[in-house]
Protein backbone atom coordinates (compact mmCIF):
# COMPACT_ATOMS: atom_id res chain seq x y z
CA UNK A 1 0.00 0.00 0.00
CA UNK A 2 1.29 3.44 -0.87
CA UNK A 3 1.97 5.95 1.82
CA UNK A 4 -0.46 8.74 2.63
CA UNK A 5 1.79 11.33 1.04
CA UNK A 6 1.80 9.31 -2.18
CA UNK A 7 -1.89 8.62 -2.14
CA UNK A 8 -3.52 11.88 -1.11
CA UNK A 9 -2.39 14.10 -4.02
CA UNK A 10 -4.08 11.68 -6.45
CA UNK A 11 -7.34 11.54 -4.55
CA UNK A 12 -10.11 13.44 -6.35
CA UNK A 13 -10.75 15.50 -3.24
CA UNK A 14 -7.19 16.80 -2.96
CA UNK A 15 -6.30 16.85 -6.64
CA UNK A 16 -4.77 20.22 -7.60
CA UNK A 17 -4.10 21.29 -4.04
CA UNK A 18 -0.78 23.04 -3.59
CA UNK A 19 2.02 20.68 -2.55
CA UNK A 20 2.88 22.53 0.62
CA UNK A 21 -0.71 22.25 1.78
CA UNK A 22 -0.83 18.58 0.91
CA UNK A 23 2.08 18.25 3.29
CA UNK A 24 0.10 20.07 5.96
CA UNK A 25 -2.86 17.74 5.45
CA UNK A 26 -0.61 14.70 5.50
CA UNK A 27 0.69 15.97 8.79
CA UNK A 28 -2.83 15.79 10.21
CA UNK A 29 -3.67 12.38 8.62
CA UNK A 30 -3.40 8.75 9.61
CA UNK A 31 -4.24 5.47 7.90
CA UNK A 32 -7.03 3.54 9.48
CA UNK A 33 -8.62 0.21 8.79
CA UNK A 34 -12.07 -0.82 9.95
CA UNK A 35 -14.02 -4.09 9.90
CA UNK A 36 -17.60 -4.52 8.67
CA UNK A 37 -20.07 -3.09 11.13
CA UNK A 38 -17.67 -0.64 12.74
CA UNK A 39 -18.91 2.90 13.11
CA UNK A 40 -16.71 5.73 11.87
CA UNK A 41 -18.85 8.13 13.81
CA UNK A 42 -22.28 8.38 15.44
CA UNK A 43 -24.94 11.04 15.16
CA UNK A 44 -24.37 13.83 17.72
CA UNK A 45 -20.77 12.90 18.41
CA UNK A 46 -17.96 15.45 18.14
CA UNK A 47 -16.93 15.93 14.53
CA UNK A 48 -13.22 16.18 14.83
CA UNK A 49 -12.24 14.17 11.76
CA UNK A 50 -13.13 13.35 8.20
CA UNK A 51 -12.36 10.27 6.16
CA UNK A 52 -10.97 9.62 2.71
CA UNK A 53 -12.12 6.22 1.46
CA UNK A 54 -9.26 4.24 -0.10
CA UNK A 55 -11.05 0.91 -0.40
CA UNK A 56 -14.31 -0.54 0.85
CA UNK A 57 -17.77 0.84 1.50
CA UNK A 58 -19.16 3.20 4.10
CA UNK A 59 -22.86 3.86 4.66
CA UNK A 60 -24.33 7.12 5.86
CA UNK A 61 -27.38 6.10 7.83
CA UNK A 62 -29.90 7.15 10.37
CA UNK A 63 -31.82 5.13 12.91
CA UNK A 64 -35.57 4.79 12.80
CA UNK A 65 -37.78 2.87 15.22
CA UNK A 66 -37.92 0.02 12.69
CA UNK A 67 -34.23 -0.10 11.88
CA UNK A 68 -31.57 2.01 10.28
CA UNK A 69 -32.01 3.43 6.79
CA UNK A 70 -29.10 3.95 4.45
CA UNK A 71 -29.18 7.46 2.97
CA UNK A 72 -25.93 7.43 1.07
CA UNK A 73 -22.94 5.25 0.46
CA UNK A 74 -19.31 6.24 0.06
CA UNK A 75 -16.84 4.25 -1.97
CA UNK A 76 -13.26 4.45 -3.16
CA UNK A 77 -12.49 8.04 -4.08
CA UNK A 78 -15.18 9.54 -1.84
CA UNK A 79 -14.82 11.68 1.24
CA UNK A 80 -16.98 11.11 4.31
CA UNK A 81 -17.80 13.93 6.69
CA UNK A 82 -17.87 17.69 6.54
CA UNK A 83 -19.20 18.53 10.00
CA UNK A 84 -15.60 19.06 11.16
CA UNK A 85 -15.64 22.36 9.25
CA UNK A 86 -19.08 23.60 10.26
CA UNK A 87 -20.22 24.68 13.71
CA UNK A 88 -21.29 23.14 16.03
CA UNK A 89 -18.81 20.47 14.84
CA UNK A 90 -21.11 17.53 15.58
CA UNK A 91 -22.05 14.62 13.29
CA UNK A 92 -25.56 14.71 11.86
CA UNK A 93 -25.72 11.04 10.79
CA UNK A 94 -24.14 7.71 11.54
CA UNK A 95 -21.34 6.41 9.33
CA UNK A 96 -20.58 2.72 9.33
CA UNK A 97 -18.29 0.48 7.33
CA UNK A 98 -20.17 -2.37 5.71
CA UNK A 99 -17.11 -4.02 4.25
CA UNK A 100 -13.51 -4.16 5.31
CA UNK A 101 -12.62 -0.59 4.63
CA UNK A 102 -9.34 1.28 4.40
CA UNK A 103 -9.43 4.99 5.04
CA UNK A 104 -7.28 7.97 5.65
CA UNK A 105 -8.54 9.76 8.76
CA UNK A 106 -7.76 13.45 8.77
CA UNK A 107 -7.72 15.35 12.05
CA UNK A 108 -10.25 18.13 11.46
CA UNK A 109 -9.46 20.00 14.66
CA UNK A 110 -5.82 20.15 13.65
CA UNK A 111 -6.70 21.24 10.11
CA UNK A 112 -9.17 23.86 11.35
CA UNK A 113 -6.32 25.51 13.24
CA UNK A 114 -4.16 25.54 10.11
CA UNK A 115 -7.03 26.96 8.06
CA UNK A 116 -7.48 29.76 10.60
CA UNK A 117 -3.78 30.52 10.36
CA UNK A 118 -3.70 30.41 6.54
CA UNK A 119 -6.97 31.54 4.92
CA UNK A 120 -5.61 30.56 1.51
CA UNK A 121 -5.48 26.93 2.65
CA UNK A 122 -8.84 27.44 4.32
CA UNK A 123 -10.39 28.66 1.07
CA UNK A 124 -8.91 25.85 -1.00
CA UNK A 125 -10.22 23.23 1.43
CA UNK A 126 -13.56 24.95 1.78
CA UNK A 127 -14.03 24.85 -2.00
CA UNK A 128 -13.52 21.11 -1.92
CA UNK A 129 -15.81 20.52 1.02
CA UNK A 130 -18.50 22.69 -0.54
CA UNK A 131 -18.23 20.62 -3.73
CA UNK A 132 -18.83 17.46 -1.71
CA UNK A 133 -21.72 19.08 0.13
CA UNK A 134 -23.20 20.34 -3.11
CA UNK A 135 -23.05 16.88 -4.69
CA UNK A 136 -24.72 15.33 -1.67
CA UNK A 137 -27.35 18.05 -1.50
CA UNK A 138 -28.11 17.68 -5.20
CA UNK A 139 -28.44 13.94 -4.78
CA UNK A 140 -30.69 14.32 -1.74
CA UNK A 141 -32.91 16.87 -3.46
CA UNK A 142 -33.24 14.79 -6.59
CA UNK A 143 -34.15 11.75 -4.54
CA UNK A 144 -36.77 13.78 -2.69
CA UNK A 145 -38.53 13.91 -6.06
CA UNK A 146 -38.90 10.13 -5.88
CA UNK A 147 -37.52 10.11 -9.40
CA UNK A 148 -38.12 6.52 -10.35
CA UNK A 149 -41.61 6.25 -9.02
CA UNK A 150 -43.32 7.96 -11.88
CA UNK A 151 -42.70 6.04 -15.03
CA UNK A 152 -45.19 3.39 -16.05
Amino acid sequence: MRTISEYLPEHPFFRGLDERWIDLVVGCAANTHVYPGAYLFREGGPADRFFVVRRGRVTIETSTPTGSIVLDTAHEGDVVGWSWLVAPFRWTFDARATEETSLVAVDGACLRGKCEADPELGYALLQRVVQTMSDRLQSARARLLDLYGNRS
Partner: protein
Amino acid sequence: MSSDAVGDETPRVTHTGGMAGKSDGQGPADRIIDVPGLQALVDRLIARGYTVIGPTVQSGAIVNAAITSVEELPQGWGDDQDAGHYRLRRRDDEALFGYASGAQSAKPVFFPTEEVLWRGRRTQEGFTVEPDDSAGRDAPYALLGVRSCDLSAIGIHDVVLTGRVHGDVAYAARRAAAFVVAVTCSDPGGTCFCVSMGTGPRPEQGRGAPYDLSLTELLNGGPHRFVVEVASERGADVLDEIGAGPAPAEDVVAGDAVAEEADARMGRHVDTDGLKELLYAAADSPVWDDVATRCLACGNCTAVCPTCFCTSVEDVTDLTGDLAGRTRVWDSCFDADYSWIHGGTVRATTKARYRQWMTHKLGSWIDQFGMSGCVGCGRCVTWCPAAIDITAEAAALRAAAEPDERDAGTLP
Protein backbone atom coordinates in the same frame (compact mmCIF):
# COMPACT_ATOMS: atom_id res chain seq x y z
CA MET B 1 -73.20 5.00 -54.53
CA SER B 2 -72.27 7.11 -57.48
CA SER B 3 -69.45 6.45 -59.87
CA ASP B 4 -67.90 9.65 -58.54
CA ALA B 5 -67.33 8.04 -55.19
CA VAL B 6 -63.83 6.76 -55.73
CA GLY B 7 -62.93 3.70 -53.70
CA ASP B 8 -59.29 4.59 -53.43
CA GLU B 9 -57.28 1.94 -51.59
CA THR B 10 -54.66 4.35 -50.32
CA PRO B 11 -55.74 6.61 -47.50
CA ARG B 12 -53.97 9.64 -48.94
CA VAL B 13 -56.08 12.52 -50.26
CA THR B 14 -53.95 14.19 -52.88
CA HIS B 15 -54.53 17.64 -54.20
CA THR B 16 -53.44 17.12 -57.78
CA GLY B 17 -56.88 17.07 -59.37
CA GLY B 18 -58.93 20.04 -60.48
CA MET B 19 -58.68 22.03 -63.65
CA ALA B 20 -55.06 22.95 -63.95
CA GLY B 21 -54.33 26.07 -65.92
CA LYS B 22 -57.37 28.08 -64.88
CA SER B 23 -55.22 30.97 -63.76
CA ASP B 24 -53.56 31.36 -67.14
CA GLY B 25 -56.88 31.50 -68.91
CA GLN B 26 -56.83 27.90 -70.13
CA GLY B 27 -59.53 26.59 -67.80
CA PRO B 28 -63.19 26.32 -68.62
CA ALA B 29 -65.16 29.53 -68.63
CA ASP B 30 -67.35 30.43 -65.68
CA ARG B 31 -71.00 29.45 -65.92
CA ILE B 32 -74.12 31.11 -64.61
CA ILE B 33 -77.05 29.56 -62.75
CA ASP B 34 -80.08 31.09 -61.09
CA VAL B 35 -81.85 29.86 -57.94
CA PRO B 36 -83.85 27.17 -59.81
CA GLY B 37 -80.51 26.24 -61.37
CA LEU B 38 -79.08 25.78 -57.90
CA GLN B 39 -82.01 23.51 -57.09
CA ALA B 40 -81.27 21.56 -60.27
CA LEU B 41 -77.66 21.24 -59.12
CA VAL B 42 -78.80 19.86 -55.75
CA ASP B 43 -81.16 17.47 -57.54
CA ARG B 44 -78.40 16.25 -59.83
CA LEU B 45 -76.04 15.64 -56.91
CA ILE B 46 -78.72 13.66 -55.08
CA ALA B 47 -79.41 11.70 -58.27
CA ARG B 48 -75.71 10.88 -58.43
CA GLY B 49 -75.96 9.31 -55.00
CA TYR B 50 -74.72 12.13 -52.82
CA THR B 51 -76.13 13.25 -49.53
CA VAL B 52 -76.09 17.00 -49.97
CA ILE B 53 -74.97 18.87 -46.86
CA GLY B 54 -75.75 22.56 -46.82
CA PRO B 55 -76.31 25.46 -44.46
CA THR B 56 -79.66 25.63 -42.66
CA VAL B 57 -81.09 27.68 -39.83
CA GLN B 58 -81.41 25.66 -36.63
CA SER B 59 -81.67 26.83 -33.03
CA GLY B 60 -80.80 30.39 -33.96
CA ALA B 61 -77.63 29.54 -35.81
CA ILE B 62 -76.39 28.50 -39.23
CA VAL B 63 -75.93 24.73 -39.00
CA ASN B 64 -74.89 22.26 -41.66
CA ALA B 65 -77.50 19.60 -42.37
CA ALA B 66 -78.63 17.25 -45.10
CA ILE B 67 -80.85 19.14 -47.53
CA THR B 68 -82.86 18.35 -50.61
CA SER B 69 -84.19 21.80 -51.44
CA VAL B 70 -82.74 25.28 -51.75
CA GLU B 71 -85.67 26.40 -49.64
CA GLU B 72 -83.89 24.88 -46.67
CA LEU B 73 -80.97 27.27 -47.15
CA PRO B 74 -80.79 30.35 -44.86
CA GLN B 75 -82.43 32.70 -47.34
CA GLY B 76 -82.28 36.30 -46.16
CA TRP B 77 -80.26 35.47 -43.03
CA GLY B 78 -77.07 37.12 -42.02
CA ASP B 79 -75.15 37.01 -38.75
CA ASP B 80 -73.51 39.34 -36.25
CA GLN B 81 -70.36 37.91 -34.73
CA ASP B 82 -67.99 39.28 -32.15
CA ALA B 83 -65.92 37.82 -29.33
CA GLY B 84 -68.32 35.66 -27.34
CA HIS B 85 -71.22 36.87 -29.45
CA TYR B 86 -73.30 35.28 -32.21
CA ARG B 87 -76.72 36.38 -33.42
CA LEU B 88 -78.60 35.73 -36.63
CA ARG B 89 -80.05 38.83 -38.22
CA ARG B 90 -82.49 39.42 -41.00
CA ARG B 91 -80.87 40.76 -44.14
CA ASP B 92 -82.61 43.24 -46.38
CA ASP B 93 -82.11 40.91 -49.34
CA GLU B 94 -82.78 37.29 -50.25
CA ALA B 95 -79.16 36.10 -50.14
CA LEU B 96 -78.76 32.33 -49.59
CA PHE B 97 -75.15 32.58 -48.47
CA GLY B 98 -75.26 36.00 -46.84
CA TYR B 99 -73.89 34.93 -43.45
CA ALA B 100 -70.22 34.92 -42.49
CA SER B 101 -69.64 31.44 -41.10
CA GLY B 102 -71.77 28.72 -39.63
CA ALA B 103 -71.42 27.36 -36.14
CA GLN B 104 -69.52 24.39 -37.50
CA SER B 105 -67.23 23.92 -40.45
CA ALA B 106 -67.16 20.82 -42.62
CA LYS B 107 -65.12 19.10 -39.91
CA PRO B 108 -67.90 16.96 -38.41
CA VAL B 109 -68.92 15.70 -41.85
CA PHE B 110 -65.60 14.13 -42.75
CA PHE B 111 -64.30 13.71 -39.21
CA PRO B 112 -67.26 12.87 -36.99
CA THR B 113 -67.14 13.37 -33.25
CA GLU B 114 -67.19 9.61 -32.78
CA GLU B 115 -66.00 6.84 -35.03
CA VAL B 116 -66.05 3.13 -34.28
CA LEU B 117 -62.62 1.70 -35.02
CA TRP B 118 -63.44 -1.93 -34.44
CA ARG B 119 -65.77 -4.21 -32.55
CA GLY B 120 -64.91 -7.48 -30.90
CA ARG B 121 -66.44 -10.45 -29.21
CA ARG B 122 -64.96 -12.59 -26.48
CA THR B 123 -64.54 -16.17 -27.65
CA GLN B 124 -63.32 -19.49 -26.25
CA GLU B 125 -59.82 -18.78 -27.49
CA GLY B 126 -59.69 -15.07 -26.72
CA PHE B 127 -61.53 -12.50 -28.73
CA THR B 128 -62.28 -11.44 -32.28
CA VAL B 129 -61.42 -8.11 -33.83
CA GLU B 130 -63.67 -6.89 -36.59
CA PRO B 131 -62.70 -3.58 -38.19
CA ASP B 132 -65.75 -1.43 -38.58
CA ASP B 133 -66.26 -1.52 -42.34
CA SER B 134 -69.09 0.96 -42.19
CA ALA B 135 -66.68 3.68 -41.12
CA GLY B 136 -66.34 6.17 -43.92
CA ARG B 137 -68.67 4.16 -46.11
CA ASP B 138 -71.75 6.22 -45.33
CA ALA B 139 -73.29 7.79 -48.40
CA PRO B 140 -70.88 10.05 -50.30
CA TYR B 141 -71.33 13.66 -49.30
CA ALA B 142 -71.72 16.71 -51.47
CA LEU B 143 -70.95 19.83 -49.47
CA LEU B 144 -72.75 22.95 -50.57
CA GLY B 145 -71.58 26.41 -49.58
CA VAL B 146 -68.09 25.71 -48.26
CA ARG B 147 -66.28 28.94 -47.39
CA SER B 148 -62.75 29.56 -48.53
CA CYS B 149 -61.49 29.45 -44.92
CA ASP B 150 -63.14 26.09 -44.43
CA LEU B 151 -61.76 24.80 -47.73
CA SER B 152 -58.31 25.60 -46.38
CA ALA B 153 -59.21 23.80 -43.18
CA ILE B 154 -60.21 20.71 -45.16
CA GLY B 155 -56.92 20.99 -47.00
CA ILE B 156 -55.11 21.05 -43.66
CA HIS B 157 -57.02 18.00 -42.46
CA ASP B 158 -56.14 16.18 -45.68
CA VAL B 159 -52.48 16.68 -44.80
CA VAL B 160 -52.85 15.94 -41.11
CA LEU B 161 -55.12 12.93 -41.42
CA THR B 162 -54.01 11.40 -44.71
CA GLY B 163 -50.71 12.98 -45.71
CA ARG B 164 -48.35 11.03 -43.48
CA VAL B 165 -47.33 7.40 -42.99
CA HIS B 166 -50.54 6.46 -41.23
CA GLY B 167 -53.89 8.00 -41.98
CA ASP B 168 -57.46 8.08 -40.81
CA VAL B 169 -58.96 5.51 -43.15
CA ALA B 170 -62.58 6.54 -42.64
CA TYR B 171 -61.77 10.21 -43.15
CA ALA B 172 -59.88 9.40 -46.33
CA ALA B 173 -62.79 7.38 -47.65
CA ARG B 174 -65.26 10.22 -47.02
CA ARG B 175 -62.95 12.80 -48.51
CA ALA B 176 -62.21 10.77 -51.63
CA ALA B 177 -65.92 10.33 -52.23
CA ALA B 178 -66.95 13.92 -51.60
CA PHE B 179 -68.17 16.55 -54.05
CA VAL B 180 -67.46 20.10 -52.94
CA VAL B 181 -69.37 23.22 -53.95
CA ALA B 182 -67.56 26.20 -52.51
CA VAL B 183 -68.90 29.72 -52.17
CA THR B 184 -67.31 33.14 -52.17
CA CYS B 185 -67.76 34.90 -48.86
CA SER B 186 -69.74 38.07 -49.53
CA ASP B 187 -70.37 39.35 -46.01
CA PRO B 188 -67.54 38.46 -43.64
CA GLY B 189 -68.21 38.78 -39.92
CA GLY B 190 -66.72 40.65 -37.04
CA THR B 191 -64.44 37.80 -36.04
CA CYS B 192 -63.20 36.95 -39.53
CA PHE B 193 -59.51 37.19 -40.44
CA CYS B 194 -59.07 34.87 -43.40
CA VAL B 195 -57.17 37.60 -45.25
CA SER B 196 -54.51 37.63 -42.52
CA MET B 197 -54.15 33.87 -42.76
CA GLY B 198 -54.15 33.90 -46.58
CA THR B 199 -57.14 31.60 -46.89
CA GLY B 200 -59.92 33.78 -48.30
CA PRO B 201 -62.37 35.27 -48.88
CA ARG B 202 -62.70 33.69 -52.34
CA PRO B 203 -61.99 30.02 -53.04
CA GLU B 204 -58.95 29.64 -55.24
CA GLN B 205 -57.74 26.48 -56.92
CA GLY B 206 -54.49 25.32 -55.40
CA ARG B 207 -55.28 26.96 -52.08
CA GLY B 208 -56.74 24.60 -49.51
CA ALA B 209 -58.70 21.51 -50.50
CA PRO B 210 -59.72 21.06 -54.13
CA TYR B 211 -63.33 21.75 -54.98
CA ASP B 212 -65.55 20.95 -57.89
CA LEU B 213 -67.52 24.15 -58.26
CA SER B 214 -67.37 27.55 -56.66
CA LEU B 215 -70.35 29.87 -56.47
CA THR B 216 -70.32 33.64 -56.23
CA GLU B 217 -73.74 34.95 -55.33
CA LEU B 218 -75.04 38.00 -57.26
CA LEU B 219 -78.12 39.84 -56.02
CA ASN B 220 -78.07 43.02 -58.09
CA GLY B 221 -78.10 43.92 -61.75
CA GLY B 222 -80.44 41.11 -62.71
CA PRO B 223 -82.13 38.08 -61.20
CA HIS B 224 -80.73 36.34 -58.09
CA ARG B 225 -77.96 34.25 -59.66
CA PHE B 226 -74.58 32.62 -59.16
CA VAL B 227 -71.40 32.85 -61.16
CA VAL B 228 -70.01 29.30 -61.11
CA GLU B 229 -66.31 28.60 -61.35
CA VAL B 230 -65.73 25.12 -62.75
CA ALA B 231 -62.84 23.40 -61.00
CA SER B 232 -63.21 19.73 -61.93
CA GLU B 233 -64.30 17.55 -64.82
CA ARG B 234 -67.17 16.11 -62.84
CA GLY B 235 -68.15 19.64 -61.83
CA ALA B 236 -68.34 20.53 -65.51
CA ASP B 237 -70.34 17.36 -66.18
CA VAL B 238 -72.92 18.22 -63.54
CA LEU B 239 -73.28 21.74 -64.94
CA ASP B 240 -73.69 20.31 -68.44
CA GLU B 241 -76.40 18.02 -67.13
CA ILE B 242 -78.38 20.93 -65.72
CA GLY B 243 -77.71 23.06 -68.79
CA ALA B 244 -75.81 25.87 -67.11
CA GLY B 245 -74.70 28.37 -69.72
CA PRO B 246 -71.62 30.56 -69.82
CA ALA B 247 -71.52 33.53 -67.47
CA PRO B 248 -71.85 36.95 -69.09
CA ALA B 249 -68.65 38.99 -68.83
CA GLU B 250 -70.31 41.63 -66.65
CA ASP B 251 -71.39 38.97 -64.16
CA VAL B 252 -67.83 37.66 -63.94
CA VAL B 253 -66.68 41.20 -63.21
CA ALA B 254 -69.47 41.62 -60.63
CA GLY B 255 -68.40 38.36 -58.98
CA ASP B 256 -64.83 39.60 -58.72
CA ALA B 257 -66.15 42.77 -57.08
CA VAL B 258 -68.01 40.73 -54.43
CA ALA B 259 -64.74 39.09 -53.43
CA GLU B 260 -62.82 42.36 -53.45
CA GLU B 261 -65.36 44.07 -51.22
CA ALA B 262 -65.33 41.15 -48.77
CA ASP B 263 -61.56 41.29 -48.70
CA ALA B 264 -61.69 44.81 -47.30
CA ARG B 265 -64.20 43.99 -44.55
CA MET B 266 -62.35 41.64 -42.22
CA GLY B 267 -63.38 42.11 -38.59
CA ARG B 268 -60.06 40.96 -37.17
CA HIS B 269 -56.41 40.92 -38.13
CA VAL B 270 -53.37 38.87 -37.16
CA ASP B 271 -49.79 39.85 -37.85
CA THR B 272 -48.34 36.48 -38.88
CA ASP B 273 -44.83 37.78 -39.44
CA GLY B 274 -42.47 35.59 -37.41
CA LEU B 275 -45.41 34.41 -35.32
CA LYS B 276 -44.05 30.91 -34.73
CA GLU B 277 -40.73 32.23 -33.44
CA LEU B 278 -42.59 34.79 -31.37
CA LEU B 279 -44.71 32.07 -29.74
CA TYR B 280 -41.74 29.77 -29.14
CA ALA B 281 -39.85 32.60 -27.46
CA ALA B 282 -42.90 33.64 -25.43
CA ALA B 283 -43.40 30.40 -23.51
CA ASP B 284 -42.79 32.22 -20.23
CA SER B 285 -44.69 35.38 -21.15
CA PRO B 286 -46.99 36.86 -18.48
CA VAL B 287 -49.63 37.14 -21.22
CA TRP B 288 -50.41 33.45 -20.62
CA ASP B 289 -51.08 34.13 -16.95
CA ASP B 290 -53.45 36.88 -17.95
CA VAL B 291 -55.41 34.82 -20.46
CA ALA B 292 -55.55 31.97 -17.92
CA THR B 293 -57.51 34.19 -15.55
CA ARG B 294 -60.24 34.40 -18.19
CA CYS B 295 -60.08 31.03 -19.94
CA LEU B 296 -62.53 28.43 -18.60
CA ALA B 297 -60.69 25.55 -20.30
CA CYS B 298 -64.08 24.50 -21.68
CA GLY B 299 -62.71 23.40 -25.02
CA ASN B 300 -65.35 25.22 -27.09
CA CYS B 301 -62.59 26.68 -29.25
CA THR B 302 -61.22 23.25 -30.08
CA ALA B 303 -64.68 21.92 -30.85
CA VAL B 304 -65.57 24.68 -33.32
CA CYS B 305 -62.08 24.99 -34.79
CA PRO B 306 -62.15 23.51 -38.28
CA THR B 307 -58.59 22.19 -37.98
CA CYS B 308 -58.37 20.89 -34.39
CA PHE B 309 -57.90 17.16 -34.84
CA CYS B 310 -57.01 15.75 -31.43
CA THR B 311 -58.79 12.57 -30.50
CA SER B 312 -58.86 9.94 -27.84
CA VAL B 313 -59.94 6.33 -27.93
CA GLU B 314 -62.46 4.69 -25.66
CA ASP B 315 -62.97 1.01 -25.08
CA VAL B 316 -66.52 0.13 -24.22
CA THR B 317 -67.96 -3.23 -23.24
CA ASP B 318 -71.46 -4.49 -22.72
CA LEU B 319 -72.57 -5.58 -19.27
CA THR B 320 -71.42 -9.15 -19.79
CA GLY B 321 -67.99 -8.00 -20.91
CA ASP B 322 -68.26 -10.27 -23.95
CA LEU B 323 -68.84 -7.56 -26.53
CA ALA B 324 -66.45 -4.68 -26.79
CA GLY B 325 -65.69 -1.90 -29.16
CA ARG B 326 -63.13 0.80 -29.55
CA THR B 327 -64.26 4.26 -30.53
CA ARG B 328 -62.24 7.25 -31.67
CA VAL B 329 -63.70 10.40 -30.12
CA TRP B 330 -62.86 14.09 -30.39
CA ASP B 331 -60.64 15.26 -27.57
CA SER B 332 -59.38 18.65 -26.51
CA CYS B 333 -55.99 19.82 -25.31
CA PHE B 334 -57.93 21.84 -22.70
CA ASP B 335 -59.01 18.64 -20.99
CA ALA B 336 -57.09 17.64 -17.86
CA ASP B 337 -56.87 14.01 -18.98
CA TYR B 338 -55.45 14.99 -22.34
CA SER B 339 -51.85 15.21 -21.13
CA TRP B 340 -52.16 12.72 -18.31
CA ILE B 341 -49.23 10.40 -17.75
CA HIS B 342 -48.79 8.14 -14.77
CA GLY B 343 -47.91 10.47 -11.94
CA GLY B 344 -50.01 13.41 -13.07
CA THR B 345 -51.18 15.73 -15.78
CA VAL B 346 -48.34 17.32 -17.75
CA ARG B 347 -50.33 20.49 -18.42
CA ALA B 348 -52.00 20.89 -15.07
CA THR B 349 -52.80 24.58 -15.42
CA THR B 350 -55.15 26.42 -17.75
CA LYS B 351 -52.24 28.65 -18.61
CA ALA B 352 -50.28 25.70 -19.97
CA ARG B 353 -53.28 24.38 -21.89
CA TYR B 354 -54.10 27.68 -23.55
CA ARG B 355 -50.41 28.12 -24.39
CA GLN B 356 -50.35 24.65 -25.92
CA TRP B 357 -53.45 25.29 -28.01
CA MET B 358 -52.42 28.68 -29.34
CA THR B 359 -48.75 27.79 -29.80
CA HIS B 360 -49.76 24.70 -31.71
CA LYS B 361 -52.37 26.46 -33.80
CA LEU B 362 -50.26 29.40 -34.89
CA GLY B 363 -46.73 28.09 -34.35
CA SER B 364 -45.69 24.46 -34.01
CA TRP B 365 -48.27 23.43 -36.63
CA ILE B 366 -45.95 25.10 -39.15
CA ASP B 367 -43.06 22.84 -38.08
CA GLN B 368 -45.29 19.80 -38.13
CA PHE B 369 -47.15 20.31 -41.39
CA GLY B 370 -45.55 23.21 -43.22
CA MET B 371 -48.56 25.47 -42.73
CA SER B 372 -50.37 27.38 -40.04
CA GLY B 373 -53.12 25.52 -38.22
CA CYS B 374 -55.32 28.62 -38.26
CA VAL B 375 -57.47 29.57 -41.24
CA GLY B 376 -58.90 32.77 -39.77
CA CYS B 377 -62.53 31.60 -39.63
CA GLY B 378 -62.97 33.35 -36.27
CA ARG B 379 -65.12 30.60 -34.72
CA CYS B 380 -62.89 30.23 -31.64
CA VAL B 381 -63.37 33.94 -30.99
CA THR B 382 -67.11 33.92 -31.57
CA TRP B 383 -67.88 30.80 -29.57
CA CYS B 384 -65.62 31.46 -26.58
CA PRO B 385 -67.90 31.97 -23.57
CA ALA B 386 -65.24 34.23 -22.06
CA ALA B 387 -64.78 36.25 -25.27
CA ILE B 388 -61.11 35.36 -25.52
CA ASP B 389 -59.80 36.51 -28.88
CA ILE B 390 -56.83 34.66 -30.38
CA THR B 391 -56.03 37.69 -32.53
CA ALA B 392 -55.90 39.94 -29.46
CA GLU B 393 -53.76 37.42 -27.57
CA ALA B 394 -51.36 37.20 -30.51
CA ALA B 395 -51.11 40.99 -30.52
CA ALA B 396 -50.59 41.07 -26.75
CA LEU B 397 -47.79 38.52 -27.00
CA ARG B 398 -46.17 40.57 -29.72
CA ALA B 399 -46.50 43.77 -27.74
CA ALA B 400 -45.07 42.14 -24.62
CA ALA B 401 -42.18 40.76 -26.64
CA GLU B 402 -41.28 44.16 -28.11
CA PRO B 403 -40.12 46.27 -25.20
CA ASP B 404 -39.30 49.21 -27.45
CA GLU B 405 -42.88 49.69 -28.44
CA ARG B 406 -44.87 52.24 -26.53
CA ASP B 407 -47.24 49.74 -24.92
CA ALA B 408 -44.44 47.42 -23.99
CA GLY B 409 -45.17 45.03 -21.18
CA THR B 410 -48.71 46.14 -20.56
CA LEU B 411 -51.34 43.48 -20.49
CA PRO B 412 -54.65 43.61 -22.24
